């Protein structure tokens, strides 16, 4: 399975999001449309804090989420790139991740990918064991994440594997194996997959591919079978 065939599987998924809130929230609907999602805005005289979005999959109600979470991801994702402190989790952000899971987003920025990666790294940190495979296109991109991964490796029993084009030699970190790639399969790919030591409830993966015109198209998932497939595909690239 290549990343492209994986992403193609999500192309036909029927996801529609309706944003309900005051006029100021109209832009969130527009941002979702930019991500290739069928989004509409419906005026509702709520305060900003109580605005919300309803997600429908295949025409059926799936979830209602506070708009604040969606908005911060779409408009200003939080990135603390050199955060080496103890990773934490935020329920609002987790809700957002599950709401947009299995949804192909067509215009992701590196900041949004990094924010999502951090969520999943935090999850791996909390689980504390299992295999985490990450690909940041080239190893030099990993440089800014170095301190964060050092914490991740030293505080947990995680088996961490980092993949990327061989353009920087990272310092050795116990618990982390680096896989410089000569193969170009993952060159345009941003990827993170965590097997949670076999616990299906905690598995997660993010896969995104850089598009011709700049942004990434990608998807994240908590579907354990899909995560297993992605893990296997990454291993195969390095064999």
């Amino acid at each position, binding site marked *: 399975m290549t990343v492209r065939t994986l992403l193609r599987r999500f192309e036909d998924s029927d996801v529609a999001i*309706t944003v*309900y809130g*005051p006029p100021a929230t109209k832009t969130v609907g527009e941002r979702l449309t930019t991500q290739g999602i069928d989004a509409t805005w*419906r*005026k*509702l*005289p*709520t*305060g*900003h*804090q*109580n*605005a*919300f*979005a*309803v997600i429908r999959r295949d025409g059926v*109600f799936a979830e*209602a989420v*506070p*708009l604040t979470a969606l908005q911060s991801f779409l408009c200003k994702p939080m990135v603390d790139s050199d955060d080496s402190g103890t990773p934490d989790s935020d329920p609002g952000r987790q809700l957002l991740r599950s709401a947009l899971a299995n949804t192909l987003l067509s215009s992701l920025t590196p900041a949004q990918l990094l924010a999502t990666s951090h969520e999943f790294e935090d999850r791996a940190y909390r689980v504390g064991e299992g295999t985490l495979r990450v690909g940041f296109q080239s190893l030099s991109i990993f440089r800014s994440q170095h301190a964060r991964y050092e914490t991740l490796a030293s505080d947990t029993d995680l088996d961490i594997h980092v993949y990327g084009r061989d353009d920087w030699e990272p310092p050795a970190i116990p618990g982390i194996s680096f896989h410089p790639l000569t193969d170009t399969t993952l060159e345009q790919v941003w990827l993170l997959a965590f097997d949670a030591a076999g616990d299906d409830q905690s598995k997660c993966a993010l896969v995104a591919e850089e598009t011709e015109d700049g942004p990434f198209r990608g998807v994240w998932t908590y579907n354990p079978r899909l995560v297993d497939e992605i893990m296997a595909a990454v291993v195969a690239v390095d064999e």
Partner: protein
Amino acid sequence: MDQHEQPVETPGLSSERLDTLLRVLAAEPRRMIYTYLAEHDSASISELTDVVVGWSSARGRDTDTCNWDDTRTALHHRHLPVLDNAGVISYDAAQRTATLVSLSPSTAEVLATIADLDTAETDHED
């Protein structure tokens, strides 16, 4: 002073009518439905259920109104007929569509005031 120059008062409501309106809007889901229809005139029951479920969870309400199927059933069997009987909306149960009816100025004023107070109270962050 010529009393005809006084501002025109909206005709008062009978106490029975006022009781009915207050009873109708005593339930939060019905205030939500009224507020939404006052903005959009007409909506399907699915859309109204989305609004009640989403808004309730945004307001941190109990899981009662956060379950979509239960809420839809409550709308269909209880809330929409109550609003319909009070002459606030017209609910077409066959088409599953609710439409705001044309209200007398005094009824509209009472409903709008309650709805405003409700959103001001619970959505006061803005």
